[in-house]
């Protein structure tokens, strides 16, 4: 035995790596919708395959982390809390995958009026994910600072800012749904139903990003 047996590999670096992968998934979504709007089926399929591939990467890393986080490790944060943050991180990738899958399965048409609000919503939700990634990237700084003090305050205010971004996405989502409602009669009824589903899922991207931030508060609090 030597001193190094005492210091187990820190779980924080893999956490940050996982979040980067999950947000890469989210970053593919705007391109996905551009392809949909342009009616480019090949591009759509390509984007969807890419998202599926990245999502599997995220899953593998997540499972790897779960295996390598035994209960006997003493960490500055609660193990349960850390695993919950991981779950929400992973949900971002999962939702992106759901969206991509549905867009390829059903041939959606995008009414002209929907294009702008849709783009705005997607952009804002992805930016929520990016912001959430910034928070997760603060993990090693938090560790150095001992999860307290100025650094903890910084991260706390970042979480609050993220709450604000998510509120904006809620409003944009409602705006999009309103436009959808106005054009319901021009569209196939079943498509409309699934459009509401799509809008819900896009919003979920931001929701999960926000949850990551909220769980982070628990990590710090202890």
């Amino acid at each position, binding site marked *: 035995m030597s001193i190094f047996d005492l210091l187990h590999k820190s779980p924080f670096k893999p956490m940050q790596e996982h979040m980067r992968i999950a947000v890469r998934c989210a970053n593919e979504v705007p391109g996905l919708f551009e392809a949909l709007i342009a009616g480019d089926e090949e591009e759509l399929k390509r984007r969807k395959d890419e998202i599926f591939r990245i999502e599997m990467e995220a899953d593998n890393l997540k499972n790897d982390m779960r295996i390598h986080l035994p209960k*006997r490790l003493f960490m500055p944060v609660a193990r349960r809390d850390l695993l919950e943050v991981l779950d929400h991180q992973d949900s971002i990738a999962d939702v992106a995958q759901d969206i991509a899958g549905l867009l390829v399965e059903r041939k959606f048409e995008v009414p002209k009026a929907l294009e702008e609000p849709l783009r705005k919503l997607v952009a804002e939700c992805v930016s929520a994910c990016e912001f959430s990634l910034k928070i997760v990237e603060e993990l090693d700084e938090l560790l150095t600072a001992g999860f307290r003090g100025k650094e903890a305050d910084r991260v706390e205010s970042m979480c609050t800012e993220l709450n604000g971004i998510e509120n904006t996405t809620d409003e944009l989502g409602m705006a999009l749904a309103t436009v959808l409602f106005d054009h319901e009669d021009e569209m196939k009824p079943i498509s409309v139903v699934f459009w509401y589903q799509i809008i819900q899922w896009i919003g979920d991207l931001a929701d999960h990003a926000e949850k990551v931030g909220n769980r982070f508060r628990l990590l710090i609090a202890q």
Partner: protein
Amino acid sequence: MEIIADQGTVFLIIAGVVSLFMAWGIGANDLANAMGTSVGSKALTVRQAIIVAAIFEFAGAVLAGGHVTGTIRKGIIDSSSPVLLENPQYLVYGMIAALLAAGIWLLVASHRGWPVSTTHSIVGAIVGFGIVGIGFDSVAWSKIGTIAASWVISPLVGGFVAFVLIRSVQKLILDREEPFAAARVWAPFYIFLVGFIISLVTLFKGLKHLNLAFSVEVSFAVSGGIGLFVAAVGGVLIRRVQAVGEESQKGRFSNVERVFGYMMIFTACSMAFAHGSNDVANAVGPLAAVVSIVQSGGEVTQKAGLPVWVLLIGGVGILIGLATMGYRVMATIGTKITELTPSRGFCAELAAATTVVIASRTGIPVSTTHILVGSVLGVGLARGLGAIDMRVFGTIAMSWIVTLPAGAILAMVFFYIMRAIFG
């Protein structure tokens, strides 16, 4: 008595060789672990660690190692026991047996990667031969009780001190708006602490065996002076740290860590010093016992002085051990510890060194490795480390249960062999 007169030189040679063997084991194992933390946090290269160890292990042994050596030499076995008075050579056999037992146990255990405390091995071995070779009552059980208690308490003390240190670092430096600027301000104070504490504990009321007597006030003054000198040197080094990429996200603390990297040079020295003050005795104490009996022609006295050359044998042996096998251990630790950043390493090492040096001053043999483990845990409790494997504590407990009897039994066996050969 005649045996001693006849075979005295033989005994001295055997004892010297076996003591060197034990010292080599201590260097390859114990010291490698102690210096490994500095290598692991990139404060020193392996080569620099060996140089630091060379200077400060010796210094620790010579300046501060006398008390623990005295305990091991004469504090565990009561030399006024009637069996010993009649057969003083039994003490010679026993001490040689103890060294052989502990040394071999060290070899076996480290080969298998078991956690091993050199201190526990030698104390267990001495108690072992004391029980069978001389008599149950010849062992100073109350002393053993104190020592055993300190084996439990010292890692806790190390942990507590480390916790206080890392919290102070968090509050004074890491928590500030400008951590790097704060680090440059506070670093000299911390470095002063290193020099001051180690000096004070060592010099308090003087160095008996070097015939230097200090009053309490002089002790404080000299220690303060040494502390200031060390802080000044440190201050010069710190000035060389340039701020690199301070604006970047990752830059904020990496500059602080670079300052602590320089600070760790001083704690690395103090770790080597502390280790020398406590663990050289494990190899040298028994040798000193043999030397004093042989030189007095069979008289087992409590009062004999400690020849400095005996401490030197221990120091040399340890260094050879560190430079040969310990080299690899430190290099391995170096590549595998990425989590112990300098700010953490500094606090853990200073806490451990302080605790060990205090124990050395009070003449109590302790396990430097276990204290270092306790100190690292203390840092972890302040939420300063990513993940600490608590399984290590189970292995430490196991090692206690196994090492003490193993050392004792091996020593008993070797004692009987010695007695059979030499009568």
